[in-house]
């Protein structure tokens, strides 16, 4: 039996060491892996941020939201409009001239990230006031409706968003350090948050709203707060995504974008922070790996042509299989802890479901 104090020291040391190792890894990666792998590693971090923020809304607080793509879109557009240079903007609006007040705004990337988060959060807050009174699936549908409305507005507001032409030539600010830095900050805040009283309150709201209200919790306020915070994450994630891919247009933010985030959250484990990260790693890499099945394969002189569409067929089968055989997701509601990891080494396979 190890005393609690010792366990904590051990855990802190282990955490510190692994963070250090990860930093070494991040430093090593750009010089040793090709840009393709780099992009995937980068995407994992961004998807993890997006997954975590959706998990805060849905997994932790129990608000079924299908609107994340909309908030990502707001974030991506706000950030892109702020980091693009005035010269780029003048060239790009070839259909209608850009709104004059927008043409000369130019900020550093970090400021644009913050603005992306804040503005997405503002819209989230605005929307949440009326619709968080809805519950269950109705909330999901209403948020989905808002996400689509946001997309339609972006498509039609050419002077501000350049319409369906989208924005291109966004400087690729999203380096590994940037995306993992954001992820680290986000993760830290989430862990802190969920361990705090606020986290308990959110879980109470999720598990039994009536009981929570009886305990004197202003459940509506809590839900609005959690929703707004989640939208902040969605905005930042969208901004990072835009700066990674360097071009954005309204079609990127269709409902399928929300589905893939939902997949990450649920496959990882609803309500588990670790789960969202595991889900992001799995879903992102799986989607990339499976590209292999669509390439022509040559064995000796024999060539099997690639089959278009096969990748998603296999991916969807894997997804269904995971859900059927591990219905709570990979992590369930559990979280990662060092004791769990060390324990795993000792009693392999003994863990109960």
């Amino acid at each position, binding site marked *: 039996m190890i005393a609690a104090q010792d366990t904590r020291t051990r855990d802190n040391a282990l955490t510190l060491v692994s963070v250090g190792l990860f930093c070494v890894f991040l430093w090593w990666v750009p010089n040793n892996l*090709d*840009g*393709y*792998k780099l*992009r995937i590693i980068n995407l994992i971090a961004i998807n993890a941020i997006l997954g975590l923020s959706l998990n805060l809304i849905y997994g932790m607080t129990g608000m079924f939201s299908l609107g994340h793509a909309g908030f990502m879109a707001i974030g991506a557009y706000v950030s892109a409009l702020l980091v693009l240079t005035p010269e780029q903007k003048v*060239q*790009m609006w*070839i*259909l209608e001239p850009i709104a004059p007040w927008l043409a000369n705004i130019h900020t550093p990337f970090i400021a644009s990230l913050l603005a992306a988060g804040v503005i997405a959060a503002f819209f989230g807050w605005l929307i949440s006031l009326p619709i968080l009174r809805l519950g269950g699936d109705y909330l999901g549908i209403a948020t989905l409706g808002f996400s689509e409305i946001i997309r*339609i507005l972006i*498509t*039609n507001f050419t002077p501000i968003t350049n*319409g*369906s*032409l*989208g924005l*291109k*030539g966004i400087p*690729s600010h999203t380096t590994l350090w940037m995306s993992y830095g954001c992820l680290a900050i986000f993760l830290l805040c989430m862990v802190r948050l969920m361990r705090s009283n606020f986290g308990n309150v959110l879980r109470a709201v999720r598990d039994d709203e009536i009981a929570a209200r009886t305990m004197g919790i202003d459940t509506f306020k809590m839900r609005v707060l959690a929703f707004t915070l989640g939208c902040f994450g969605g905005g930042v994630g969208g901004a990072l995504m835009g700066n990674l*891919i*360097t*071009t954005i*247009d*309204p*079609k*990127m933010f269709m409902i399928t974008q929300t589905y893939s985030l939902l997949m990450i959250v649920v496959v990882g484990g609803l309500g588990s922070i670790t789960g969202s990260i595991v889900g992001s790693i799995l879903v992102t890499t799986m989607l*990339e*790996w499976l*590209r*292999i*099945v*669509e*390439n*022509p*394969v*040559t*064995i000796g002189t024999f060539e099997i042509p*690639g089959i*278009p*569409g096969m990748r998603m067929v296999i991916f969807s089968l894997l997804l269904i299989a995971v859900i059927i055989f591990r219905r709570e997701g990979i992590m369930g509601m559990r979280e990662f802890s060092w004791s769990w990891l060390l324990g795993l080494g000792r009693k392999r396979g003994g863990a109960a479901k």
Partner: protein
Amino acid sequence: MRKLVLALVVCLMATGAAFAADDVIKIGVFNCLTGQNAFGGQLELEGTQLAQKEIPEVLGKKIELVIVDNKSDKVEAANAVTRLIERDKVNAIIGTYGSSLAMAGGEVAEKAGVPVMGTSCTNPLVTQGKQYYFRACFIDPFQGAGAAAYAYRDLGFKKAALLIDVANDYSVGLGNFFKQNFTKLGGEIVSEMKYQSGDQDFTAQLTELISKKPDIVFLPAYFAEGAIVLKQAKELGAEFRFMGGDAMDNPEVVTLGGDAVEGFLHTTFAYDPSMPNMNPVAQKFTENWKKAFPGKEPNVNAALGYDSYILIVDAIKRAGSADPKAIRDALEQTKDVPTVTGMTTLNATHDAEKELGIVEIRDGKKQFIGTVTP
């Protein structure tokens, strides 16, 4: 699960082994083989493959095509190009149908310094400010101006209307260039209706258009949607004519639209299998295509896929090297290269300067009417 992993590993090794050979020049192709633009991308790929079969070598080295699907999706397009450059180490790239995909891929290629030859991405933004992006096609302002000139001058139509897919960059761009030029010529735009990609019911927009009595409606749609629009217009008894852009140039237009596409006009590149007095390259292309794909008509997408390959090989030949930078420099000097769609010269903005063709559908067949100058 273990079996699956094993299978994946085997696949990985097999693909790895395929690209291990030395002394080959690799040309990457990224195009839409699946997704909503697959109908265009597939034809372009087949055109490129046909060209590769005809010219399998340059500078005494074998040319190998590395094909990647961009799934008509921007994120995938950027990934696909990254993969071609980083993993397959291609010397040059061909692609793609769809301007937004070209833009997403173009950013990656620009940074890596690998030249790309765009097939049918006609939006001016694609090559804007790019050192490494070129294209075998003309651009939408030119096409829109040509369409407007043909409608106003040659057909004598004074009142035009637009039906635009507001979610499609191609449609919005081309429609806008048509509108600008048509009004500049002195014509009047009587109505501008919009729909969203994926819509299949256009009756409301068409009823509104009919009430405005235009002479011609400009419909810069993709062919599958466009054909449905024409069908519904006929059902509703529309009497005006329709005109589209190069994205309507697909043999399927007639099969999809039936007799409703009769009299439909569209601008396109100066190639069509129905064309009288074809240039020698086009003749050869048409013959070989019919041999390779019996029962399937070639179209401009196939021709542009073919032309893109020719332009790159021509540049490699002139550069005397397959170094990406050398190819780029040679591409910039491209002048009067005979291609299927006419003599191709790449101008200062890396766009092909070529003629604009007009096609009309008569008696269920595409008829190449001639070329226009805006």
